[in-house]
């Protein structure tokens, strides 16, 4: 995986998901200023959520860290939940762009392809595991706007797993009668749970990947076609 995945500034500027940012660039210094503020806030927030957690970080701290006023944070973002949501969306855009490129070339059994896919996830999040914990925690935030997509409500991960499993069915490795939806949910739950090990056991990426491998093995026992 290329290391420039971690350079957020460049990405923010060309993120197609934020057309307003693109429009900003086109219309004068005031808009450029606004975009600069936005980027600084996102960068500060990424740092603070990763070190202090989601609940432990206040908007005031984010503003101070970014060197902007609290007021200007609020002209760009409606809430802390929205800030985190944007931080994660930009990160995950990069992760999924990479996965879109790589996953079609994965070889091996269905279980192994799932293992590789999740191993890429862990490798990507390696340096920001606590940020990912924030991402999960935010899913339960009372103030989260309904437009945001916290962990568990992102469709892309779900689609990607479904595709691998569907390929498995086509290859005769996955029981066509298996409840694929339940498999997807179990895999996502296992993936999320594995991040706990960072906090409880101080697990590194190697440990997390190994744990996920075992969990996938166990779930794979449940989708293997019945030997006739």
């Amino acid at each position, binding site marked *: 995986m290329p290391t420039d995945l971690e350079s957020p500034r460049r990405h923010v500027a060309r993120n197609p998901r934020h057309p307003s940012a693109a429009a900003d660039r086109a219309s004068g210094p005031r808009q450029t200023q606004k975009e600069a503020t936005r980027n600084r806030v996102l960068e500060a927030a990424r740092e603070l959520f990763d070190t202090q957690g989601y609940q432990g970080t206040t908007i005031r701290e984010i503003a101070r860290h970014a060197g902007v006023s609290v007021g200007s944070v609020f002209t760009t973002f409606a809430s802390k939940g929205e800030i985190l949501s944007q931080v994660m969306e930009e990160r995950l855009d990069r992760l999924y762009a990479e996965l879109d490129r790589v996953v079609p070339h994965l070889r091996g059994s269905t279980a192994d392809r799932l293992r590789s896919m999740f191993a890429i996830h862990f490798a990507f999040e390696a340096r920001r595991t606590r940020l990912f914990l924030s991402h999960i925690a935010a899913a339960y935030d009372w103030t989260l706007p309904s437009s945001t997509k916290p962990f568990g409500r992102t469709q892309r991960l779900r689609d990607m797993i479904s595709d691998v499993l569907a390929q498995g069915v086509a290859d005769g490795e996955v029981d066509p009668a298996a409840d694929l939806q339940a498999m997807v949910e*179990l895999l996502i739950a296992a993936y999320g749970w594995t991040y706990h090990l960072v906090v409880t056991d101080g697990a590194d990426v190697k440990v997390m990947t190994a744990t996920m491998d075992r969990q996938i093995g*166990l779930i794979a*026992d449940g989708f293997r076609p019945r030997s006739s």
Partner: protein
Amino acid sequence: MKHISPNQVAGQTAVKMPTRRALAKQQTRAKVLTAARRLFSEHGYEGATIRDIAAAAGMSTGAVFANFSDKSDLFREIMSDDMSALAESMRDAAPRGRSVDDCLLKMFTAGYAFYKSQLPLARAAFSVSWAPQDGPVLRNATQVQVLLEQIVEQLTLGIERGELSQEAEIKLRSQMLFDAYLSNYPQAIFEGWSLDALQSRARDQIRILLAGARRG
């Protein structure tokens, strides 16, 4: 200091008459806990402040702090009361099953039924469980570990009855079953899944997670 939950107050007075002062203290604690339960449910863990809780209980913040060291202490107390009650209803439900799958399903369903009427509080608990400091404390709480132990117990019984193989990887499998059980709460919290829907999803999950452990 021993924490006394409002549920236990009645039982304890019967055994040993507490002093008037101890009784007053228990009543204060009970009032704080009731108010806290409501505010955590309405505003979440982060949104509820000690000041608001004190106001809702009709007392000063000083009086709250005389009984609880901080907000997380207060929340832990509520959680541990609920978890104990939850563990009990799961323990009652499990033996009614006819197989490992069924015992686990009955346990999980008892859990969903228990929380169905207080999903906002469950939501607050999930939020806390992912926080860097309070999360591990909550997850490692004895009452939570007891729930996990009950799953281990069911799998062990399954092996004894010959339903599951000796190499059932009980530890990992129990953890995954517990996690699967928990993973359905967001559907209940955010998408209003019925008890039946939760039960049916849990049934599928249990079947998948036990598939590799079955004998023969």
